[in-house]
């Protein structure tokens, strides 16, 4: 399922963060940073997308759905591509 990223993966995630949009459905990852203005960043943080939090990509595409802490968030592509994550096989959302 996450074979495309196995070369990046360590037990705690890869060294180089990748945009959330590059992950296929079913991938687990950890948030590295949110490359966006303060207000949007704060909103995402408030909704649960905090730095280093584990997430699971439930649906990828133009709009993606991620599961964070038992909550599903729908993110437009514009937002998702600014969220940098460390893909991780072992992590569990």
């Amino acid at each position, binding site marked *: 399922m996450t074979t495309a990223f196995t070369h990046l993966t360590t037990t705690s995630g890869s060294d180089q963060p990748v945009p959330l949009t590059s992950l296929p459905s079913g991938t687990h990852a950890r948030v590295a940073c949110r490359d966006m203005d303060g207000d949007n960043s*704060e909103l995402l943080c*408030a909704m649960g997308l905090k730095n280093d939090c584990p997430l699971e990509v439930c649906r990828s595409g133009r709009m993606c*759905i991620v599961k964070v802490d038992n909550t*599903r968030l729908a*993110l*437009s592509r514009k937002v998702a591509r600014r969220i940098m994550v460390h893909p991780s096989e072992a992590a569990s959302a």
Partner: protein
Amino acid sequence: MTSSSSTPEHQHDANTQSASPPQRIALLGHPNAGKTTLFNALCGMRAKTANFPGSTIEARVGQWKHDHTSVQVIDLPGMYGLNLDRPESRVCKAYLHGEVDRMSAPDVLVIVADAANLGRHLLIVSQALQQGRRAVLVLNRIDMAQRKGVTIDYDELRRRVGCPVVAVSARSRLGLDALPAAVANAQQSDVALPSTTSADDAAAWAADVVAACVKRGQHDARASALTDRIDAIVTHPVLGFVVFAAIMIGIFYVIYTLAAWPMDLIELSFGTVGSWIEGVLPAGAIRDLLVNGVVAGIAGTVVFVPQIFLLFLLIALLEDTGYLARAAFVTDRLLRRFGLSGYSFLPLLSAHACAIPAIMSCRLVPDHRDRLATILVAPLMSCSARLPVYVLLIGLLFGDSPALAALAFVGCYALGAIVGVLTALILRRTALRGESSPMVMELPDYSMPSLRTAWLSTYDRTKVFLYKAGTVILSICIVLWWLGAYPSVDAPAHVTEMRTQATAIETASPDRFIEIMDEADRLEARHAQERSFIGRMGRTVEPVFRPLGYDWQITIGVLSSFAAREVFVSTMAVVMVGDESLADEETSLRDTIGSAERDDGTLVFNRATCASLLVFYVLALQCLPTLAVTRRETGGWFWAMVQLVYLTVLAYVAAFIVYRLALILL
């Protein structure tokens, strides 16, 4: 990590509050934290619980009675943070700072958080605790947290947040007994809280609190797995659209089939009331006003209630299941191509019942350009008030072909929707140019909808519609009746002569007598209408509408329905038939006005005129209450006037083109 910026942002009356028992409490928290359910549990007031994020954008106020005391409870709009640049955050902050007129700031802030997802809610908890108000932290859905294997150390949490903590399940009323004591003992937090300006500080503090207070054990993953399975279908790029389309078609089918008989019943009841008044009161101006102004006016509003009620009920049920958030997600893809977003979906759907609540629900659209574009195009969606006009005109056009008539109905709805999204696209590329804020929304778990909750919220919304639209439509009907009834003129000579002739044959031929007298009544009513204020206005304005194929009689209909489009049918009944009661009998009205002639002997409602009129009513903003609500929601007359002028010019030009084309083709 946890900076010591515990200085309250607003110290003002915090010290004086602490001694007094609370008179007013405010519920604050995330959308979907269960604030409104708690509000309902406390107040028993009719407030709604919605899964669609941000649906409690208007605060609800109620009274919580316990232990012989009464406390005012304010249910604030759900939001993710007090400092965000979003309408609901600004509203809450303004309220907590005492900046909302005639609404005093609360004595105690009840911060509602989801016990199963405490970590996500702690940011708003920390911000709320720093507002300088006495506070209580309510952990809602404690039963669900237990099912998910979450255990919370309440003593430690109380120590970390510096205020009383109560665990409840608002839906099952579990733990609510402890709330009065907690509210009475609410206190201003005096612990070190993270800076309100740093999200990272707050996140780190929240992580610390969760690590210290929350323990996760084995959890029941069935609900989550079910949501995942349903989501795989309803958010699928192709299947999602199919499901969405099926649900929308289902909703409209149910509305039109189920609403038909109560609408007939309402029409029949008001007809009976009108006849009863005619029988009881002596002939005169007051009787005419009551029958043709007041009863017709009330009936004109109430008749749409079944459709509006059903649409609101189905929307509320869908909200409660959690599907509407997915529908917004699915439609976002489509609407974004036209400069709108998924947030616009619910207002545009509601606009098919009535544009007034639709424009009001635009408050949940966070981006102000998206919001404005949605408000401006909402009246293009075919509302139920257009239905009687569609029924009349399509009946005249395709009365002999049900298939073509059905196609024309669909065409009217499609035309409104297509012109609506194209208008939005033009607006977003010109006057409202700029990037809209990207969509980020929470998709709640699916759950069984509560019929009671949906029923109560629908009742509330329908009441608001009846009050807001009903009072305006009633006033319009009364004013129109007066303009049509005055100046009263004597019956023309030929009518008097007809009556004399009729009287002469009354005993010999009673049937013929009634026939002639009826005809005389109609001719007199038409004569009076033509010479009334509104008739004169019709004659004066006729040249403006002549290029669209309308004569003075249709012009009266268009003018009188400027304030409310549904008035068109009753006006036509009065102008052409002289008897408004025929407006309820579609077929006879259609036959009569279908054969009515102009001054030059040609048909008033020829096919080209009907087509032109139909397009005019699909596109024109013939609704004064809509204009008033746009003015209120956009904060001034500018956009309301833009909406009026744009839609009127658009309708005029489109009707002109259709008339010219129809003259050639039909």
